[in-house]
C-alpha cells in the first residue's frame, strides 16, 4: 500500500526515517555514539523552496549533505524522483548530478590555483564528455549572464582570491546550476556576504527557482533571510537532529506551535528600535542538550517550560491545522502568536 502512495505523489526528493550516527573516539573501547540526525522524514516538491533552520549543531548541514549524496545515512532511505538513491550509491554516485550543493565558505569551495574558467569548465566536461570546447564556452557564457557577472571575460581569467565574496558566491551558484540540476542545496549561502549584497544573491536564487524551475533547500540560522527567500515555501525547524516543526513559512512565523520554534522566533532581532519584544525567552535553560547516547523521549525536555513526565516516552509528530509538530504536550503550549503584527506579503505560487 505504501508503494502505491509513493507512486501517486512522487515528490522530487523524499527522505524516510533518516538516521545519522557519528562515532566519537573515546577512551579505549569507549567510543561514543553521536546521534546527529534522528528519524528525519521530509519531502521536497518540484519548484519548491524548503528552508532548514536551527541552531549551530542541530544537524542541518549534515542533512543537506545527505540530500546531496555527500554523506550516506546510517539508516533510512533517500528517494529522488521515486527512485531510491541511498544504498545504491556506489554505482550511481557519478550520475547523481541532479542535486547540487553550494557551500557556505566560497573561498574554501573554489580551488585557489584554478581560474574561474577552469572551475566552471571541469564539471561540464566531466558530465558531457562529447561536448566540444566551443559548446562548453557557450554554456559558460550563458551561465555568467544568468548570475549577472558580465562581461564574462573580466572574471573568467581570474583566480578566486581576485574576486570579492559576493562574486565568488555567484560563481559557486553558476557552477551548481551548470549541470541543470533539479535541486540545489544551499548551505548558508549569504552568511559571509555583506548586508548590501545579500539581497541581490537571494534575489538571484529566487529567480533561478522561478525561471529554471529549480527546487532549493536553503539552510540557514537566520529566519529573516529565510522568510525573504522562502516566503511561499516551507520551513523545517530543526533541534538536536530532529525536525520539530514543519509547515508553510508564513504559518510557522504567524502561529508557531513547538515550544522551541516559539523561543527561536522571539530571539530574532527586529530592525526597528521601537519594536518592544520580551527579552526573556520561554526557555528553562540556555544549554543545548547532548547528542550523545540519546534516550527515546523528547530531546527538548531539559529546556522546555511545558514538559512533564509524559515527554520522556517515545512519540511521533502531530499534525496541526497548519503544520506538523514533534511535541507530545501540545495542549500545554500557549497558542498566542509571538508577534503581534506581521506584514504578510501576498504571493501565491
Amino acid at each position, binding site marked *: 500500500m505504501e508503494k502505491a502512495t509513493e507512486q501517486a505523489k512522487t515528490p522530487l526528493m523524499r527522505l524516510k526515517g533518516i538516521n545519522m550516527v557519528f562515532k566519537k573516539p573515546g577512551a579505549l573501547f569507549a567510543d561514543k555514539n553521536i546521534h546527529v540526525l534522528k528519524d528525519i522524514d521530509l519531502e521536497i516538491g518540484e519548484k519548491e523552496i524548503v528552508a532548514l533552520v536551527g541552531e*549551530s549543531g542541530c544537524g542541518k548541514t549534515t542533512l543537506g549533505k545527505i540530500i546531496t549524496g555527500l554523506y550516506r545515512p546510517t539508516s533510512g532511505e533517500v528517494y529522488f524522483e521515486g527512485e531510491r538513491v541511498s544504498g545504491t550509491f556506489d554505482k550511481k554516485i557519478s550520475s547523481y548530478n541532479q542535486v547540487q550543493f553550494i557551500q557556505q565558505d566560497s573561498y574554501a569551495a573554489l580551488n585557489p590555483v584554478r581560474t574561474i574558467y577552469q572551475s566552471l569548465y571541469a564539471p561540464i566536461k566531466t558530465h558531457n564528455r562529447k561536448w566540444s570546447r566551443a559548446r562548453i564556452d557557450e554554456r559558460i557564457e550563458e551561465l555568467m549572464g544568468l548570475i549577472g557577472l558580465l562581461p564574462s571575460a573580466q572574471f573568467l581569467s581570474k583566480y578566486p582570491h581576485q574576486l570579492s565574496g559576493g562574486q565568488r558566491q555567484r560563481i559557486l551558484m553558476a557552477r551548481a546550476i551548470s549541470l541543470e540540476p533539479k535541486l540545489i542545496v544551499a548551505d548558508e549561502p549569504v552568511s559571509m556576504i555583506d*548586508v548590501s549584497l545579500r*539581497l*541581490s544573491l537571494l534575489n538571484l536564487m529566487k529567480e533561478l527557482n522561478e525561471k529554471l524551475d529549480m527546487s532549493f533547500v536553503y539552510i540557514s540560522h537566520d*529566519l529573516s533571510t529565510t522568510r525573504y527567500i522562502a516566503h511561499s515555501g516551507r520551513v523545517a525547524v530543526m533541534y538536536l537532529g530532529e525536525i520539530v516543526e514543519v509547515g508553510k513559512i508564513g504559518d510557522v512565523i504567524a502561529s508557531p506551535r513547538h515550544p522551541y520554534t516559539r523561543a527561536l522566533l522571539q530571539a*530574532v532581532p*527586529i*530592525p526597528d528600535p521601537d*519594536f518592544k519584544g520580551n527579552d526573556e525567552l520561554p526557555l528553562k535553560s540556555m544549554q543545548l542538550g547532548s547528542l550523545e547516547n540519546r534516550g527515546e523521549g523528547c530531546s527538548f525536555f531539559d529546556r522546555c517550560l511545558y514538559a512533564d513526565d509524559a515527554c520522556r516516552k517515545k512519540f511521533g509528530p502531530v499534525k496541526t491545522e497548519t503544520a506538523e509538530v514533534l511535541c507530545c504536550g501540545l495542549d500545554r503550549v500557549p497558542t498566542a502568536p509571538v508577534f503581534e503584527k506581521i*506584514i504578510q506579503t501576498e504571493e501565491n505560487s
Partner: protein
Amino acid sequence: MQTNRDNIAVFSHVSIDYPLKKYTLRAVTDITFELKRGAITALVGESGSGKTTLASSLIRCISEPGRVAEGEITFYGKDGEERLDLLPDPKMRAFRWSKVSMVFQAAQSALNPVLTVREQFTETLEAHGEKLSKEEREAKFSDLLGYVKLDAERVLASYPHELSGGMKQRVMIAFALLLDPELIILDEPTTALDVITQNYIFTLLKQINREKGISMLLMTHDISVVAKFADYVGVMYGGRLMEYGDVRTVFHRRRHPYTAGLIGATPSIIGDISEMKPIEGSPPDLLHLPKGCIFAPRCPRCSDVCLTEEPPMREYGDGSKGKCYFFGEADDGKGN
C-alpha cells in the same frame, strides 16, 4: 556644545593609516564623533569599512603596521582626561583593560587554550598590580561569573575547549569586567553564535550597561542588532563616518542614502518584504576611491556635485549628522 561630562571618549578628526611597501592605505579618514557616557554606541558597517580599526585605536590594538596618522583621541575617565593617541606605551599597558576592555569576535581565539579560566583571570589581575588575598580573588571571580550566569566553580577550573561557544563568550564578558572598566568595546560579540545565544548575550550586556553604568562601543554589521540594542549609532562606509545620531532618529528618518539603503536591504521577520532592494554595485576599493563622495557610484540620489567633491559633514541640529549633500533633505519629519 556638549561638555565632556557627557562623553566618555571623543574622536576628533582621526585618520588611521596602514603604511605598506609601495603605498599607504588610509583605513579610517577624518572621523569625528563622541561616545556618550553610560550609553551603548554602535558602529555599523560592512567588512572593510574601518569600524574595527577605529575602535581598536582606543586601546592601541590596531593590527600592524597601522597607526593613528592624524587627529586626537581623548578619554574622559574618573581620574581625569587622557590623550590616548599620545599615551606612552607602558602607561597604555596599564590603561588597557583597567579603563577600556574589549570582548573579541572569536572568544575561542581570545582565550589562552593552555590556561584554565582561573589562571587567566589571576594572571590579568596580577599584571595590573591588584593585590588581593586568595579569598578576595576567588570571591571576585565567582561574583563576576555568577553575574554572567555561569557556574563559577566548574568554569574557573575549565580550559576554553571544555566550554561551549556561548559559555566562552560569557567568560570573555566576565573577563572584560574584571578590572571594573569604564568602557567596553564589543567587536561583533555574537557573530559565531546562534540567535538564541545572541539574544541572551545582548540581554546580559544591556543589563551590565544599565546596572553598572559601563559605557559600551559595539561593532557590528547587523542592523537588526543595532536597532534592538544600541542607543546611538555611527554608520561607517569606506573608512568614513557617513552618519551619526541616536538610533531612533537614524532608523526612522533615514536621512542618509547609504543608511536608508542598508535598512532597506535588511529583511525583517515581521516587516514588509515585498519592497526590499539591494544596494547596487559593490563596496569601495580603499586604494582606488572614486573622486567626490565615495558612495556616489552606488547612490540612488547621486547628482553632479557628488562626483566632483567629497561632501562635508552636515549637522542636523538634533545631534545627528551626516556626510551627504542631501542629508536630511528628504526628511519630512513624519519618520516617527
